[in-house]
């Protein structure tokens, strides 16, 4: 409860020399991470809906005087009464009760200047912590563009701490912020804040502070209303959602193809050079079949992944995603979850790991558990290379809806739908059996619509490429090299053995009986094992195996697959990848978030059983 507040203005002048940690706090979606990124040069994830940051993140800033400040980006809070895990993390750190961080030396309270009356309510609670505080009124650019204004001096005079109007996007006001961090910002006159210990009282106080600071609220945005009318329309809303999704999948196949061809031929040409340059040796084999064949065949899929992320970026930055959650609430409710679970589930289209963490924003612990258990069933981007490869090899392209939807995009769409349906079905099972709970009031704040900026979309793509390339350079590279060695021993008469007789081959044959019921042979079986590290590793593994097998150069991976797999086997393999938890990092994160091995073990077993049985059925049906 906020009580008497005594801002210690005298300590504002110098932060302690050793501990110069400054916490950035404030309500959700006010731009804390954007502000943090602007000051530290880091790329903490930013998107236009509440609940993006669920974990503290520390970044440092060098000051002109040679000193250094550690800034802490925190999850958003709406008051000092945390309910969900992410809010708890924030409040614990602010109160100095965190096990991992000392109490910060100062705080920056970020508020949205376009909604000042409401946000000022946070001030007494934060000042009550007794830390030197700077209040930043962010989104100055929007305030001005929509015709609002505020007298920061007047706000400061009433709350007793310095106040700066700033914009994390345009950089306005950042100089004052840096001066605060250096301790050279003039302190405000000390004020005794009234003792308030109830929210209606805080609201009244906040409104009166705003009124006495000649605060003019900006005009409500008209086009925001209009967009809501379209996106939340009874028929139009869901139709638009569907159209957006179809457009994404179709462009994954059409737009990406020329770029993929270019990447593929670049890899082919460079492999040719190496082939011509190096004498025949083990190293050459390792480079060509192991590295180029393995890592190269995964790299080809980068353009498709980037297209997916471009669309996700537009959806996240515009504020549309929160509307989609509203539309989805009804179906979420039917399976026993709340609409809030939809956002972590959607974000697992990128990757299950942030999705499992995003489940922290769900207050109800049982709902949170159900959400993080089903999240890995939705189709993450690591499945995309596997899907794209098999679809290109086995599904002939034919138009279904003119140029708008072809067979390949339709199959991809069906696979995504299968993952989503499996996630929903599993959630329903969990919620109606083991994780029953009493529904809590459902509240979802909708962010204002914003234009996605080219800059932020470009950063998203660059960051995603880095992640992808890092994975290619670590997990995929290492597994393909290990595989290449296993496939090159034992030597027979001083020559590497035919792959079927190598160590890899005998391991493969040992497990073949397990994968045979799915119509798969031992080579794919090896891929299923290596891809436990990460799903796209199977593409690299097959690239290496087929590359080593071929006498003359590497045949295109697609042709090799067509020769080895029946149509039914291909569908079975797709089913297996749709449902199996082929990702050790996800297992690890679920263990961390649930605090033990029990849930990840159940999850892994359940998903494996689902994958195996649907694969088996698919092979039976499609032959």
């Amino acid at each position, binding site marked *: 409860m906020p009580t008497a507040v005594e801002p210690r203005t005298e300590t504002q002048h110098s932060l302690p020399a050793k501990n110069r940690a400054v916490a950035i706090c404030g309500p959700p979606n006010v731009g804390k991470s954007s502000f943090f990124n602007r000051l530290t040069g880091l790329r903490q994830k930013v998107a236009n809906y509440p609940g993006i940051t669920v974990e503290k993140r520390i970044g440092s800033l060098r000051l002109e005087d040679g000193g250094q400040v550690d800034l802490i980006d925190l999850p958003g809070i709406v008051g000092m009464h945390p309910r969900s895990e992410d809010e708890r993390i924030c409040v614990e750190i602010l109160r100095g009760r965190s096990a991992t961080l000392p109490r910060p030396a100062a705080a920056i309270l970020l508020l949205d200047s376009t909604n000042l009356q409401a946000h000022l309510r946070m001030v007494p609670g934060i000042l009550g912590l007794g830390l030197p505080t700077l209040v930043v009124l962010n989104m100055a650019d929007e305030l001005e563009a929509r015709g609002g204004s505020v007298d920061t001096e007047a706000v400061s005079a009433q709350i007793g701490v310095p106040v700066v109007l700033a914009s994390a996007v345009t950089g306005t006001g950042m100089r004052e912020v840096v001066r605060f961090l250096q301790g050279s910002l003039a302190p405000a006159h000390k004020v005794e804040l009234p003792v308030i210990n109830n929210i*209606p009282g805080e609201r009244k106080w906040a409104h009166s502070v705003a009124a006495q600071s000649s605060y003019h609220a900006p005009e409500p945005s008209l086009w925001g209303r209009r967009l809501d009318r379209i996106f939340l329309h009874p028929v139009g809303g869901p139709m638009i959602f569907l159209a957006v999704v179809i457009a994404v999948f179709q462009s994954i196949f059409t737009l990406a193809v020329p770029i993929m061809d270019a990447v593929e031929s670049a890899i082919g040409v460079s492999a040719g050079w190496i082939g011509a340059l190096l004498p025949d040796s083990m190293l050459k084999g390792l480079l060509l079949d192991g590295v180029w064949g393995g890592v190269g065949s995964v790299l080809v899929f980068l353009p498709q992944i980037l297209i997916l992320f471009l669309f996700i970026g537009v959806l996240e930055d515009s504020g549309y995603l929160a509307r989609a959650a*509203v539309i989805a*609430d*009804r179906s979420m409710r039917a399976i026993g979850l709340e609409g809030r679970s939809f956002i972590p589930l959607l974000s697992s289209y990128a990757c299950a790991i942030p999705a499992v963490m995003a489940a922290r924003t769900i207050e109800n612990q049982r709902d949170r558990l159900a959400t993080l258990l089903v999240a890995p069933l939705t189709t993450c981007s690591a499945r995309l290379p596997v899907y794209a490869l098999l679809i290109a090899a086995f599904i002939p392209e034919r138009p279904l809806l003119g140029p708008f939807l072809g067979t390949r995009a339709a199959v991809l769409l069906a696979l995504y739908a299968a993952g989503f349906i499996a996630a929903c079905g599993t959630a329903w099972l969990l919620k109606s059996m083991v994780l029953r709970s009493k529904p809590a*009031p*459902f509240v979802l704040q909708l962010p204002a619509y914003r234009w996605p900026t080219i800059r932020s979309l470009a950063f998203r793509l660059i960051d995603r490429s880095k992640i992808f390339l890092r994975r290619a350079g670590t997990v995929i590279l290492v597994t393909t090299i290990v595989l290449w060695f296993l496939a090159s021993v034992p030597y027979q008469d001083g020559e590497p053995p035919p792959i079927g007789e190598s160590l890899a081959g005998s391991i493969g044959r040992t497990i073949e009986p397990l994968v045979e019921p799915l119509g798969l042979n031992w080579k794919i079986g090896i891929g299923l094992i290596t891809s436990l590290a990460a799903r796209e590793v199977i593409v690299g593994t097959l690239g290496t195996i087929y590359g080593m097998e071929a006498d003359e150069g590497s045949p295109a991976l697609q042709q090799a697959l067509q020769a080895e797999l029946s149509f039914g086997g291909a569908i079975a393999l797709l089913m297996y990848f749709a449902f199996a938890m082929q990702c050790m990092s996800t297992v690890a994160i679920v263990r961390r978030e649930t605090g033990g091995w029990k849930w990840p073990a159940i999850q892994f077993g359940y998903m494996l059983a689902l994958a195996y049985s649907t694969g088996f059925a698919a092979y039976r049906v499609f032959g």
Partner: protein
Amino acid sequence: MPSTESDSLDRLPPGVTAVIAALDFEEADRVRLMELGFIPGSSVSCQRVVPLGDLAIFQVEGTQVALRKDTAARITLQPSSAARNPDADSG
């Protein structure tokens, strides 16, 4: 039409503004709803009722918030505080 007899938030028609009187929830839920803007004394307007669903979107304390009907039903409004909002979206 201004429906002055509507006494809980779920019955507030789109385009009408009223003042919140009380919240009938257990303490923790009540605090959370107040932290999100549903504070006794705040004006609230219903912006739209979401298709097919039992959700409605409200404008309160400067933010847009989606609430389920059953939650809204437990938020009572001050009698005869309802007034037609001139610039509200009635469609």
